[in-house]
């Protein structure tokens, strides 16, 4: 008997009136875990019952503890008829299963009903006593920590980053079972919620087992998704990065003065070599096919693009041997892995050596209606196929790993598009595992990685490039080759030198498709996909040039399939990397240059484009240091005056042609202006309005060029659905509608948040879905953070100055002492960690103290504030503790849509309720914030004729405790003789 779960029902408040006669309620509570149910007494005639129950004790396997949610049902007692359900609370007790997280769950939970929404609150206390039972064959994975955060969590240090873990679980969707015809919508919704809760628990447990197998103790960048496949079933799948994490015991060790979270990152993990005992030679990870009964009889794989910088150039050999050496090492470290993928998007310094470019793969599958358990092909095999493809793309780019890796699906009826994307990269083997690496070799390698530009250097062989690329010598160190444009799916590395500010860049695209069935449909889709990818890429490239920038970070391309159209939406944050060459402009060329008025028109357009570029450069403060040609010298084959890029990425592919994976036609770089499509493209380029002054936006964690955030943050979700009039369904009209939809949405956000100026919208995350024939739904989640304008100006100025200075010194030194430069410009790397450790030891601060301070004021009458943010940090604050993962799934349905304020009223209330439930769970865990919050799914269906609507929402994030930096200083200055008693009594009996 490995665990005892104890539950106490304290009280209820604000219950709904269930008895019209008395205007009161006779409430009691059922507490259910697994197959055991307890009941409280009936508390007669009250809307604020005080049950104060005994401790209900469940003796359960830890396997069940991981899989099952605790289910609390509040009911109204009725003597003569059946008891009426008021609502339910599902509590995931996983956070109680590892010792470092929460020890007790205690607080007010909203009582939720899938038909009526939140109906009052209930106060519950939950504890778990775990008993270790080492002899058993382990089926549970208690103790493995899960993080949604896609970087090493703030108060941990990564000892080893093991690599990719994945798993999927399949089941029938209760909504489509025969029984659904005879049960109430409420029962059906609840069955679904419960099933998904169970499946996520199971999935998490299985992933945990894999992590233990790899000798890891945590999963970072855990991303769990649901595929609602309709009649063919329900898939819950998850990916993550297995790590061995070490807790930095005192959060006070961080210098409270350091403002930017990235700085903190730099100092925290990994900088000293893994001296921890946990070295392991792990065997190849995991690929267990879950017994999926679902099958597929049709599949089309889509040729995939590889995005990177384009152009051509000659080779340089400097640094070659080191690169080769490095590659060798990394290879040996990664070779053993089936999929050397990492879901992380931000890394410890030195981890990311080179970045190749974005790799992605898509595949169109047909979901099978026929129930055929003997069919060997499963969802696992589908994903394995795609991952294999990604892996080979990465190889083609001379990379052995893929970082910033993610997977997604889009389903419409029986067609499913599976997508995976990531950034091909060369990693430093030091972090991947164990001691095969010699210390001195490491040292040498490190010295040879120039700071701030190393990741830009091409990982592939210049003489044997996988695609035509235009290479130049790095503008920072002048020793290695860099591409002219860099696309990645990761966050901007903290040490990257960026000039000016960044901005959100989106490519938006619609393509009509004929309605078709089954295979014909799948074929039609897969025929369209390459064109869409191509168009999206072209748009991104053009918009990037228009902004005067040369790199994209956090690139996310979403292709959504609908009945009669495909939508593509790509979002990324454009920046100007100092290491990369200045981007050329955009030049328009006509096809028939004889016509005079036509020429005039073209030159007019050209002028507009040039003006826009100049304006953008000013707006984003892009003024790279002028580098004289003499310094650059001969190795640069083509100086910067090339400015003709249009329509194709393979602009001047005069050298390598056979390896041209990017399917660019050599003559396509001339924009044919008499082509209406092209016209549209140019116009749409120019119609993108920059955000109003005082606003910036990006889809990465933080905005390059802004680093003085205030603590004022506002996370929000905005949803828009438009109905297309079926008359004007042409590709162009569609594109325009979609473009307007996104632009208007952004404009609305800027307007709504105007009181926060100067402010930046960070982690802007757009999702598109096509719920019905003529409906387009766009969901945006982001966080607005105010920053201090005065300081911002200062820092950017000094930043630019610094980079100017650096550039000049670099140039000087380049000529004289090229080797010393690199070691000199290494920042004070070896020291900060040591310092951190000593401070850590010297500080007598216990953890309990922090918890005490930040414990939500539950005794107080008002509700404690819980912050939510999609970022991994909270500006101006230190995260002192991770309490566990929040992963919640809700269904809401109504049969009185009009009465609830129509679709907008319905969804507005539901999202507000979801936020409330997330906050309540975090507060009950003793936390005061959710970081890395994400709304993974928001499926909305309506039937206004029947006055009905239904919505499914899936959210996740990490519950944390944070302490304001100002408070932290106060704490650390006054020597705490104070009692370090834990804020929660008991619950720590675990062995």
């Amino acid at each position, binding site marked *: 008997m490995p665990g005892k779960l104890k539950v106490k029902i304290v009280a209820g408040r604000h219950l709904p009136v269930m008895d019209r006669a008395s205007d009161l309620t006779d409430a009691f509570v059922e507490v259910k875990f697994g197959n055991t149910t307890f009941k409280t007494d009936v508390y007669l005639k009250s809307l604020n019952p005080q049950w104060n129950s005994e401790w209900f004790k469940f003796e359960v396997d830890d396997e069940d503890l991981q899989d099952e949610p605790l289910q609390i049902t509040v009911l109204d007692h009725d003597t003569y008829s059946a008891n009426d359900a008021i609502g339910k609370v599902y509590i995931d007790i996983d956070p109680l299963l590892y010792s470092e997280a929460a020890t007790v769950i205690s607080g007010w939970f909203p009582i939720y009903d899938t038909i009526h929404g939140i109906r009052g609150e209930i106060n519950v206390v939950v504890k778990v006593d775990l008993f270790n039972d080492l002899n058993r064959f382990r089926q549970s994975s208690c103790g493995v920590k899960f993080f949604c955060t896609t970087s090493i969590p703030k108060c941990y240090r990564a000892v080893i980053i093991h690599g990719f873990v994945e798993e999927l679980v399949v089941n029938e969707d209760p909504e489509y079972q025969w029984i659904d015809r005879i049960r109430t919508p409420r029962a059906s919704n609840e069955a679904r919620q419960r099933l998904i809760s169970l499946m996520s628990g199971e999935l998490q447990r299985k992933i945990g087992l894999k992590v233990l197998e790899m000798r890891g103790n945590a999963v970072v960048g855990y991303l769990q998704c649901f595929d609602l496949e309709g009649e063919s079933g329900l898939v819950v799948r998850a990916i993550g990065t297995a790590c061995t994490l070490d807790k930095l015991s005192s959060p006070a060790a961080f210098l409270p003065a350091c403002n930017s979270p990235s700085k903190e990152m730099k100092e925290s993990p990994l900088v000293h070599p893994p001296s921890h005992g946990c070295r392991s030679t792990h065997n190849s990870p995991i690929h267990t096919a879950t017994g999926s009964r679902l099958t597929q009889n049709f599949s089309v794989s889509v040729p995939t693009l590889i995005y990177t910088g384009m152009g051509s150039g000659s080779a340089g050999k400097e640094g070659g041997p080191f690169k080769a050496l490095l590659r060798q090492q990394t290879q040996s470290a990664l070779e053993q892995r089936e999929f050397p993928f990492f879901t992380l998007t931000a890394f410890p310094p030195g981890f990311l050596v080179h970045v190749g470019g974005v790799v992605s793969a898509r595949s169109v599958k047909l979901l099978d209606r026929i129930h055929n358990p003997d069919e060997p092909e499963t969802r696992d095999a589908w994903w394995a196929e795609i991952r294999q493809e990604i892996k080979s793309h990465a190889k083609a780019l001379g990379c052995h790993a893929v970082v910033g890796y993610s997977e997604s699906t889009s389903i419409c009826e029986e067609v499913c598009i599976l997508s995976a994307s990531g950034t091909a990269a060369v990693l430093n083997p030091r972090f991947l595992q164990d001691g095969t690496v010699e210390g001195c070799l490491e040292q040498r390698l490190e010295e040879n990685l120039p700071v701030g530009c190393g990741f830009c250097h091409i990982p592939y062989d210049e003489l044997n490039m996988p695609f035509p690329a235009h290479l130049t010598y790095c503008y920072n160190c002048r020793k290695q080759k860099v591409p002219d444009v860099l696309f990645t799916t990761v966050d901007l590395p903290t040490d990257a030198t960026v000039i000016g500010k960044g901005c959100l860049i989106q490519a938006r695209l619609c393509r009509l498709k004929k309605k078709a069935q089954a295979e014909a449909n799948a074929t039609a889709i897969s025929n369209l996909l390459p064109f869409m990818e191509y168009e999206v890429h072209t748009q991104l490239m053009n918009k990037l040039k228009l902004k005067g920038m040369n790199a994209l970070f956090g690139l996310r391309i979403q292709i959504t399939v609908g009945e009669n159209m495909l939508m593509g939406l790509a979002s990324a944050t454009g920046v100007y990397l100092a290491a990369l060459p200045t981007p050329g402009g955009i030049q328009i060329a006509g096809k028939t240059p004889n016509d005079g008025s036509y020429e005039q028109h073209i030159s007019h357009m050209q002028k507009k484009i040039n003006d826009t570029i100049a304006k953008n450069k000013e707006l984003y403060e892009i003024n790279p240091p002028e580098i004289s040609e003499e310094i650059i010298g001969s190795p640069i084959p083509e100086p910067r005056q090339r400015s003709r890029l249009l329509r194709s990425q393979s602009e001047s592919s005069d050298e390598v042609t056979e390896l041209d994976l990017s399917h660019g036609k050599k003559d396509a770089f001339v924009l044919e202006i008499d082509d209406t499509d092209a016209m549209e493209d140019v116009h749409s380029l120019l119609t993108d309005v920059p955000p*109003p002054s005082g606003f910036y936006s990006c889809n990465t964690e933080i905005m390059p060029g802004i680093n003085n955030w205030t603590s004022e943050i506002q*996370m*929000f979700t905005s949803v828009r659905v*438009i109905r297309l009039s079926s008359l004007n369904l042409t590709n162009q009209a569609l594109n325009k509608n979609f473009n307007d*939809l996104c632009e208007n949405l952004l404009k*609305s956000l800027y307007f709504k948040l105007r009181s926060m100026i100067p402010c930046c919208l960070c982690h802007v995350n757009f999702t598109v879905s096509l719920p019905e024939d003529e409906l387009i739904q766009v969901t945006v989640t982001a966080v607005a953070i105010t920053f201090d304008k005065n300081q911002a100006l200062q820092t950017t100025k000094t930043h630019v100055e610094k980079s100017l200075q650096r550039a000049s010194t670099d140039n000087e030194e380049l000529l004289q002492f090229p080797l010393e430069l690199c070691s000199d410009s290494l920042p004070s790397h070896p020291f900060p960690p040591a310092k951190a450790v000593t401070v850590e030891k010297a500080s007598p601060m216990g953890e309990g103290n922090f918890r005490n301070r930040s414990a939500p004021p539950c005794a107080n009458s008002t509700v404690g504030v819980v912050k939510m943010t999609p970022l991994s940090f909270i500006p101006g604050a230190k995260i002192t503790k991770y309490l566990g993962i929040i992963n919640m799934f809700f269904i809401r349905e109504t049969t009185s849509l009009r009465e609830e304020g129509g679709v907008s*009223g319905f969804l*507005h209330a539901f999202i507000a309720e979801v936020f409330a439930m997330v906050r309540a769970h975090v507060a009950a865990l003793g936390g005061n914030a959710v970081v890395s919050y994400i709304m993974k799914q928001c499926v909305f269906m309506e039937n206004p004729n029947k006055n009905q609507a239904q919505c499914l929402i899936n959210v996740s994030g990490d519950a944390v405790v944070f302490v304001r930096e100002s408070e932290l200083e106060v704490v650390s200055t006054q020597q705490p003789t104070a009692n370090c008693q834990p804020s929660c009594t008991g619950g720590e009996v675990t062995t």
Partner: protein
Amino acid sequence: MTSELDIFVGNTTLIDEDVYRLWLDGYSVSDAVSLRVRSGILEQTGATAAVLQSDTMDHYRTFHMLERLLHAPPKLLHQLIFQIPPSRQALLIERYYAFDEAFVREVLGKKLSKGTKKDLDDISTKTGITLKSCRRQFDNFKRVFKVVEEMRGSLVDNIQQHFLLSDRLARDYAAIVFFANNRFETGKKKLQYLSFGDFAFCAELMIQNWTLGAVDSQVADMDVDLDKEFLQDLKELKMLVADKDLLDLHKSLVCTALRGKLGVFSEMEANFKNLSRGLVNVAAKLTHNKDVRDLFVDLVEKFVEPCRSDHWPLNDVRLFLNQYSASVHSLDGFRHQALWDRYMGTLRGCLLRLYHD
């Protein structure tokens, strides 16, 4: 392309004060949008009308959802659905319960019943306040009235506790409840010159001195109902005017004391008996509910108007009333000194407040 659905939900609920005011004032979304356009917000922010429309809709929806909670403000503090900083919560509540002077003057002292509610149409037309806003204000009055009507303890405290209003607003509501409960007539033409503030001032004095709570702080209804016994006793004051000797003595005491100090001395001397009769008769009549209702009409008719027609300066009124009340203590034949003080102390305050143009 039409927008089917358009929402914005923040982790911290966004409250736009200007839109909240428009919503409270009962404007429809389209009216609110055009008012906002007129305020020049589009030029300031570079937004479009569509953006403004969407923003206004969003705020209206939020307010609509909050309204249920605003009906019981402590619920707003304890609810989990909307995360709102305390200062904003206070603002929401305070503004929601705020009322228009013009409106309150129309319903002050009326029975807060369905009948009155039906008259809201007329009030709306008369005052130019939207019907929606009238309804909200009326419902607020009624809600507060219902909650505190039969409660023990101080009226102001009860209102503050159950509606979390500021001290100022809670006092105003106490006056409204007090007036509604006693049904004082405030709508007569000759009372039109009086502001809500004037009445509220009087209500406060009356609550302090004339209610049951003034004697015993543990009774239900203590601050809402007038002390019946006290009203009954007021009949005793009648001898001040019925007994001719007493009246003459009183007059001579007042005149002696005020000679040379009043600018309107002769007018006062000439009018003394009328004024005194008026004031004492008002007291004596208070046993009848109907006369209680007419209290303010009587005070204005019997005292304010005569003085005003003789152009008494306010200071003279004050000197007179002080002397008039104090001199009674020197009337040997009069035994109800305490009663007189309880009555006249309050009345003096009220009259001074009511005496203006």
